[in-house]
């Protein structure tokens, strides 16, 4: 097919979707970046000048940087818990259960993941209030988030475990490795890319979470996510909220940049 005609056809096919994404995601992000350097929202006759003050505030005011650290701390706990709890689930699914039972249990584990996150978080308020009475505490936030993100960990680890050729384990055993050694030296290293993918998929949204802390955390809910949210819904300091959003994005990008080489190896496989 001639080049020009092909070009036209490809453009026709991809343009609507990408135009939509550009106008509702990428352009808004660019505009928000612009807003984060303004003194005020430029509406009506209100004066707005360029400033770095919001970014300076992030580093100088304890309420912002300290709560950013709290968000990262929360993400670390939740991610760690999800991987530690999820890895054995993935192993059990791939090694102990076969056929339709595996398919069914796998579906059961990822089913909640496709249901309403808000409603699931809400459902914890009843459990945590009842016999344990830890509602509106830090552990309540962690439990709610682990519940929300555990399926991600199981999913990514399961997929990478499933890709491991059973014969590799057998080869290791034939070479004299104990079950434990075969796991530590063959299975675990080969599944690490899956673990890493799970870590990213959990760490990033948990860093940006605000709904779970708001519902489950009470006064312990003060973190970067809820602080950003309140700039838009309560105090209406949009430029500050925009700057804080970009600081959060910067932190996330930093994390991605650190882990990207490892993740890339996983994608290429």
């Amino acid at each position, binding site marked *: 097919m001639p080049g020009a005609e*092909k070009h036209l*056809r*490809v453009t026709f*096919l*991809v343009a609507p*979707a*990408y135009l*939509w*994404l550009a106008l*509702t*995601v*990428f*352009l*808004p*992000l660019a*505009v*928000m970046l612009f*807003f984060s350097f303004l003194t005020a929202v430029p509406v009506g006759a209100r004066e707005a000048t360029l400033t770095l003050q919001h970014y300076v505030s992030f580093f100088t005011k304890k309420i912002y940087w300290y709560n950013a650290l709290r968000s990262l701390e929360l993400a670390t706990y939740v991610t760690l818990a999800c991987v530690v709890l999820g890895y054995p*689930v993935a192993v*059990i699914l791939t090694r*102990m259960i076969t*056929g339709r039972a*595996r398919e069914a*249990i*796998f*579906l*059961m584990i990822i*089913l*909640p993941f*496709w*249901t*309403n*996150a*808000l*409603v*699931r978080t809400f*459902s914890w*308020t*009843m*459990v945590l209030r009842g016999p344990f009475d830890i509602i509106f505490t830090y552990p309540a936030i962690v439990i709610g988030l682990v*519940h929300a993100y*555990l399926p991600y960990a199981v*999913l990514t680890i*399961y*997929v990478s475990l*499933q890709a491991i050729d059973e014969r590799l384990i057998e080869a290791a055993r034939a070479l004299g490795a104990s079950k434990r050694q075969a796991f530590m030296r063959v299975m675990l290293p080969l599944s690490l890319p899956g673990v890493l993918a799970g870590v990213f998929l959990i760490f990033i949204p948990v*860093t*940006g*979470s*605000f*709904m779970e802390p*708001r*519902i489950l955390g009470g006064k312990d809910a003060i973190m970067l996510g809820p602080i*950003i949210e309140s700039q*838009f819904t309560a105090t209406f300091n949009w430029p500050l*909220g*925009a700057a804080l*959003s970009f600081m*959060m*994005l910067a932190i996330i990008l930093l994390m991605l940049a650190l882990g990207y080489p490892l993740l890339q190896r996983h994608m290429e496989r």
Partner: protein
Amino acid sequence: MRFLGLTYLGAILAFLYLPIAIMMLMAFNQSPLYELPFTFDLVWFKALAGNERLLTAGWNSVWIALVSSAIATSIGTLAALGLARNEFTGKRFLQLMLFPPITIPWLIIGTAMLIFFFWTGVGRGLHAILLGHVALSLPYVIVVVGARLATHGPELEEAATSLGARPAQAFFRVTVPLLAPGIVAAGMFAFAVSFDQFIISYFLAAPGTSTLPVEIFTAIRKGFTPEINAISSIVIIISMSLVLVVSRFYRFGGER
């Protein structure tokens, strides 16, 4: 060993389903304060039937999910076709562009949309929510349909043309039937993404009119009533049945 493994698996499943089960149970409990003993009653469902606000929000959620999944599925399928069957410069870039909307926290995307829509005069409201939901579903649709396209190479379409089929005949007789399960799955994914979406809707909702999750959030923060349990139970059941239907069309990385 096996026993230990199955016990652990059971415990994890209990952890995942226990709160949902308790919430559903409480929706049928007479006491508004979740007090035991459990007394079966449909009082909260009856109350729900009279709650105009929640019902309107529910209806908004459903039609926004329907419309946004229809839009996202059609233009997303086109994009997947364009990406899968052609080599061109910038293709890798377009594929990479699908990741930010999925990976950037919704809090950031939602606030960016709020600023942008406000600034351009699009404003807040159901139309803004609809615009946002399509954007969120698009990457999923493109990935799901693209994965389905990748399960067979171009040789089936080539076989069709070698047998004398015009490009349009090859597309409608071979590509579309093979793609159908992927398109159906993508559509239902898109529906689920929209129907369950809270964060974006929360920032884009105009006061007074919103979707169900936003309405539920507001109610929870105001001090909730068991009507919320009732509507939440309904929402969960709708979502779960949807996924069960999708799973018939599309295997989630699971293998026989």
